[in-house]
């Protein structure tokens, strides 16, 4: 191979198309190095080495399982807590309820007030006083404020 091309290869400079083709041809040409290198044995590491590696791999696998359990467990716990909070807040809505006895009392008083107002109108219009209704007691004006 030419010296110039060799220098370019050593400096890892870009090659022309012609130079690239020449390099490819050199590489495709029969070379003993693949056979030399493939004949080099690769001795496997010892059983003790392998045993140590297995222990380390198991430790890493365990750590990863614990980390995963912690992540999922925390997420589940947070989700469960959120659900419980939702149920507690929205399942039994509190609406203000007026006791029925108060409503009944208010309705009676309102009715008596309307009757008294009507009677008063009639009395004013006709200039007479109306007899009290049987069973009905005259309206107690002092109860007006309690309506």
């Amino acid at each position, binding site marked *: 191979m030419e010296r110039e091309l060799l220098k370019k290869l050593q400096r*890892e400079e870009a090659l022309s198309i012609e130079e690239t083709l020449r390099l490819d041809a050199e590489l495709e040409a029969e070379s003993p190095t693949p056979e030399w290198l493939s004949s080099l044995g*690769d001795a496997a590491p010892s059983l003790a080495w392998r045993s140590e590696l297995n222990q380390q791999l198991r430790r890493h696998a365990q750590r990863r399982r614990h980390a995963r359990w912690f992540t999922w467990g925390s997420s589940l716990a947070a989700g469960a807590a959120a659900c419980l909070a939702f149920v507690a807040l929205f399942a039994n809505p509190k609406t203000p309820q007026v006791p029925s006895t108060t409503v009944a009392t208010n309705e009676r008083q309102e009715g008596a007030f309307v009757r008294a107002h009507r009677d008063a109108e009639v009395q004013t219009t006709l200039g007479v006083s109306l007899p009290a209704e049987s069973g009905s007691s005259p309206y107690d004006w002092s109860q007006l404020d309690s309506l």
Partner: protein
Amino acid sequence: MSGKDVQSEQMSALVGVKRLAAGRKYDTASEQALVEQCRRQDFDAFSKIVDAYQARVFGFVKRMLRSEEEALDVTQEVFIKAFQAVGRFDGRSSLRTWLFRIAHNLCIDRSRRKDRMSTAMSLDFVAEDEDPIEVSDSRFNPEEIILREEMAAIIDRALESMSDKLRIVLLLHDKEDMGYEEIAKTVDVPVGTVKSRLFLARAHLQNYVSRYLQGEVS
């Protein structure tokens, strides 16, 4: 026949039968199935991946770092990181590319952390490291076996003597059979750069071995 061809022939004859690759090889579909199981934290599935790749990854890392002790540490790191990140492996590249990319990055990190000095590997160390020939064949007499082991030592030394960036490309292409595109993804350089480095790495290796045979290198 040129001198180079004669040497090449001699070396090929000495190298002889290819060793069986350590670890079972899975086809693409089986590998994808294994990766899916690994994503579900199937420890046994990941064990199979380790079985298939541990020797190759260890061999690669050892040749990159030139220290067996460090290579053992880094190889473990490769598989631990792979186990931690398997959920993010999207399958766009092959499992092999992905594992070697992790190995490559860890080797670069480790190399940057310390000053690396070239140390020659002693023949004794390499001889202990090599598995004995398992196939008994009358063609392989003891002399040839010794010669083969010596060749392996020479090649290992030649690999040591070249720069990291050349060594990586040479190992991934000529030993691991990766294509240019795959190597480019693993090492994160353009395909053109991969080709340039492969050419230079082969030239370096052949030159080193040739000089050894001529007695210029001890």
